[in-house]
């Protein structure tokens, strides 16, 4: 069965491309750091939120880590559009490999880069004073963080692939990022607690898979969260499975 070696090959390409584009790595870290530092200290020094259970920078850091994974993974999935545009997709599609292994390799690649980026942000956040206050054993923290970032990473790469399989050109890119990615991020509870929101907004937060990822990451860092951790994990697992399936089905339809 060469399914897994094909998956590995596609993953390897994603990783080679990631390592190759150092300038992009730096610039894609700059944005979350700006959010973390400026919002963290700017908002945190002037406003008091009820029910934070921790200071604002600590509250914000897990959300910014999830944002990093969201952006990295969804755009990694959408890079299928670039492959289409630059012709490389044909090279992939004409190879004697299953389309599912390509989707899986691409997803693992995007998720790996997402996790690396997210971990770097988390590491850097400790330099500006973010503290781990959850009191969870270190092993449990690492495992839970990895599972969380893996599930949301895979889910959003799947979503990116699904979108890329349907749009023809790079023009759709800007629209998707304005009308989909940013709302997902803003409505994830990364910036503010989600327990005192107006009803319509609560609904939007509740159907946003990233909200559960942020909640789970926040549990790892601060020990305070909104939903039961099993709910977080269950929703993320479901999101991961559904998005992988949709991504694979739509990708197979590309002609």
């Amino acid at each position, binding site marked *: 069965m060469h399914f897994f*070696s094909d998956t590995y*090959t596609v993953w390897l*390409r994603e990783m080679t*491309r990631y390592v190759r584009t150092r300038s992009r790595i730096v610039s894609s870290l700059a944005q979350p750091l700006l959010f973390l530092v400026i919002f963290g200290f700017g908002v945190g020094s002037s406003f008091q939120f009820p029910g934070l259970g921790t200071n604002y920078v600590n509250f914000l850091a897990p959300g910014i880590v999830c944002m990093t994974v969201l952006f990295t993974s969804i755009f990694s999935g959408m890079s299928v559009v670039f492959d289409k545009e630059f*012709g490389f997709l044909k090279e992939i599609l004409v190879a*004697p490999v299953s389309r599912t292994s390509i989707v899986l390799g691409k997803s693992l690649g995007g998720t790996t880069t997402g996790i690396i980026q997210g971990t770097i942000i988390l590491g850097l956040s400790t330099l500006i004073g973010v503290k781990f206050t959850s009191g969870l054993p270190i092993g449990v923290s690492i495992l839970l963080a990895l599972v969380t970032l893996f599930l949301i990473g895979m889910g959003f790469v799947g979503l990116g692939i699904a979108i890329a399989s349907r749009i023809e050109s790079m023009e759709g890119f800007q629209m998707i990022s304005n009308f989909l990615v940013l709302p997902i991020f803003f409505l994830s509870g990364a910036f503010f607690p989600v327990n005192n929101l107006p009803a319509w907004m609560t609904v939007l937060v509740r159907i946003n898979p990233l909200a559960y990822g942020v909640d789970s990451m926040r549990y790892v860092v601060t020990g305070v969260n909104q939903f039961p951790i099993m709910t977080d994990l269950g929703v993320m697992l479901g999101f991961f499975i559904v998005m992988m399936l949709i991504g694979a089905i739509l990708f197979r339809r590309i002609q």
Partner: protein
Amino acid sequence: MKAIISKDLVKKFEDFKAVKGINLEIDEGELFGLLGPNGAGKTTTISMLCTILKPTSGSAKVWGYDVEQEPENVRKSIGIVFQDPSLDDNLTGRENLDFHARLFQVPKADRSERINEMLDLVELKDKANTSVKKYSGGMKRRLEIARGLLHEPKVLFLDEPTLGLDPQTRRHIWDYIEKLNDENKITIILTTHYMDEADHLCDRVAIIDHGTIVAQETPTELKHSIGGDVVTMTITPDNGEFIEKVEPLDFVRSAQQVDDSIRLSVDKGETAIPLLMELARQEGVQVPSVTLKEPTLEDVFIKYTGREMRPGEVSDLERMKAMAKRF
């Protein structure tokens, strides 16, 4: 064995029929050309044979495998060089080849040797570890050919292999193609809208226009079917009477009105021209220009389709597009 057999292959895109029933039989070891203007259905035909597009109807076998039933076996048997660039610019030449070798299951033990061999063949060894971004158009084309050959395909498809390349690089690529066919015995199917390319390279040529094959023979036989020489003349006033007078003459094999000129296929051009001029004088028409040449595939194309292919006009636009994509 037949390398490729297709029966009534049809492809419809919504209401547009791009390919209207193509029948091909290509022998093992042949260098076969699909010649036609842009939009004739060449790439669509190739795409169906390569399993990228599903035929609307009809069937095709490549190396004995059905393109719809056994696509994976077809893909293993073929190599393709696409019309548009299809390399990953962020990877080096070697990395592009390595990716391909892995997906085509070249055994790990042979992989790097095979890659080196191919890099040697296309003379890119010293550029192997350079990012493809820094390659010239010709180098990219050569790397794509190397990639197409990496997994030792039985059948190689080349879709407009020299589109957008300068004459020197074109020659170079022709040499590779001939070498592959002669020495490595690879069956090659190429599409082109350059008459000279088809004439120079191909054992057999199928002329394709509006999705159908209008003629299929060796280039020599195709040209022979035209007759001896081609005389093209413009006359004033051109009221259509002159061509009727010319047609029944015993040395004229065929006469055709093509745009502003009359195109005659004659037995012996050098003796025909004085006779034609004499006739023109008798009829009271003037002959501003007359040319004589041996028939080319261009003339064959005109014979079967009644119009010129105008590779110049089309290729300039196409060349610009191809260049824009390539650089």
